């Protein structure tokens, strides 16, 4: 039986120590049972490892930063589409999602599908709005306050108490143990990610993450919970294990059902020392550790692609509990000419990957 073949463009090829999810997503796509995938990489910077990895992408194109605006992005995507005839795009960075969401109708007209959250979902789950989100859906969240002036840290010191979390609107989170640290982090984050900066009550406990997929009608198509086993100094999981925890699964299903979540997501949860579950953050996209989900039986990138293409997808109901992912670093040998080509031309063609030439 011949499988359909799709051209799928993926961002987030920065498989570095604080990795983007692109490479893991691509591995899921290449292992999809229901289709063959031809992968187009979309990258921002010239040293994103995924650009150079063998048997991963067919061709990678540089795209403009979100700060350049959607018109620039649209122009570049139109060019790439004219060369590659893309079926689906899977954007993987928080900071670029807004731009892709904005372009979704236009891209759809061109025949390019995506499966992204709605603007409303995207906004209300935002760090800045998380406290309201928790109230609205009856989910426990730690108290969070968005501020634009470091003087406000003093104002909220009592409610929040040290240590507290200082978070950027898009990225970055630091634990501050005193006022001076809090002020420093505030300035550092504001300079990089702008305002507001979020102060969040610190919750002591154990961190759990869930990655999943909602079909936009309240159904949970996939959900795999994981406990971080080893955390890097940037707070990223370097190893984790799939677990069975009905409380986490309940919370996840409640989240998907009540918001009607559309697309991939990651829930960052904290089980406090007194056994309560707090939702710390909702990432509106697939996380970098998604290959664990693929490995335990829930191919989220595959299911997301099929949903994007308008297919009906049955929910995954099982996964293997007690499997680990352990990330590793791997040095590739890359010819300077590849780097030069990519840097000067903004694109790099790789050989057809193994799977395709079979």
């Amino acid at each position: 039986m011949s499988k359909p073949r799709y051209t799928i463009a993926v961002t987030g090829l920065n498989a570095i120590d604080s990795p983007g999810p692109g490479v893991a997503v691509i591995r899921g796509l290449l292992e999809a049972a229901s289709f063959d995938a031809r992968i187009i990489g979309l990258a921002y910077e010239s040293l994103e490892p995924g650009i150079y990895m063998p048997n991963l992408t067919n061709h990678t194109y540089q795209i403009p930063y979100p700060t350049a605006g959607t018109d620039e992005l649209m122009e570049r995507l139109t060019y790439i589409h004219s060369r590659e005839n893309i079926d689906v795009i899977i954007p993987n960075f928080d900071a670029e999602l807004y731009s892709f969401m904005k372009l979704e109708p236009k891209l759809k007209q061109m025949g390019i599908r995506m499966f992204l959250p709605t603007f409303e979902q995207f906004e209300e789950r935002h760090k800045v709005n998380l406290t309201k989100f928790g109230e609205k859906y009856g989910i426990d969240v730690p108290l969070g306050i968005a501020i634009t002036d470091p003087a406000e840290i003093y104002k909220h010191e009592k409610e929040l108490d040290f240590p507290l979390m200082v978070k950027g609107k898009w990225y970055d989170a630091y634990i501050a143990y005193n006022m001076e640290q809090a002020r420093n982090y505030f300035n550092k984050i504001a300079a990089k990610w702008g305002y507001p900066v979020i102060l969040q009550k610190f919750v002591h406990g154990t961190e759990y993450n869930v990655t999943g997929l909602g079909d936009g009608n309240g159904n949970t198509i996939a959900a795999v919970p994981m406990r971080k086993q080893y955390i890097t100094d940037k707070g990223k999981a370097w190893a984790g294990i799939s677990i069975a925890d009905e409380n986490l699964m309940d919370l996840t299903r409640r989240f998907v059902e009540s918001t009607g979540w559309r697309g991939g997501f990651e829930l960052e949860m904290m089980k406090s020392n007194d056994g309560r579950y707090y939702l710390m953050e909702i990432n509106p996209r697939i996380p970098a550790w998604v290959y664990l989900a693929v490995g335990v039986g829930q191919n989220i990138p595959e299911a997301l692609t099929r949903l994007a293409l308008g297919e009906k997808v049955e929910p995954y109901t099982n996964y293997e509990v007690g499997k680990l992912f352990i990330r590793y670093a791997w040095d590739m040998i890359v010819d300077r000419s590849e780097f030069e080509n990519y840097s000067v031309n903004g694109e790099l063609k790789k050989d057809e990957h193994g799977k395709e030439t079979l």
Partner: protein
Amino acid sequence: MKIKHQIAISDTGFLFNPATGESFTVNPVGAEIINLLREGHTWQEIIDKITEMYSVERNSFEKDLHEFAGIMKMHQLLDKDE
């Protein structure tokens, strides 16, 4: 002014310094200058050639060449001056 001899520049304006491992991109006028330097041309000859090829005043090019040389020096692409 002499350019370090191992330095190579590609047609696309990509310059690689094998001694330091640094890479650079150079615009067409810059690439022209570097090629002239590699061929051993003197400061004056470079000014003659470039002002012949491009629509630029001698004075204003000489000033730009000074700045360009300064940046090349900063990036350690030039041999120590004699």
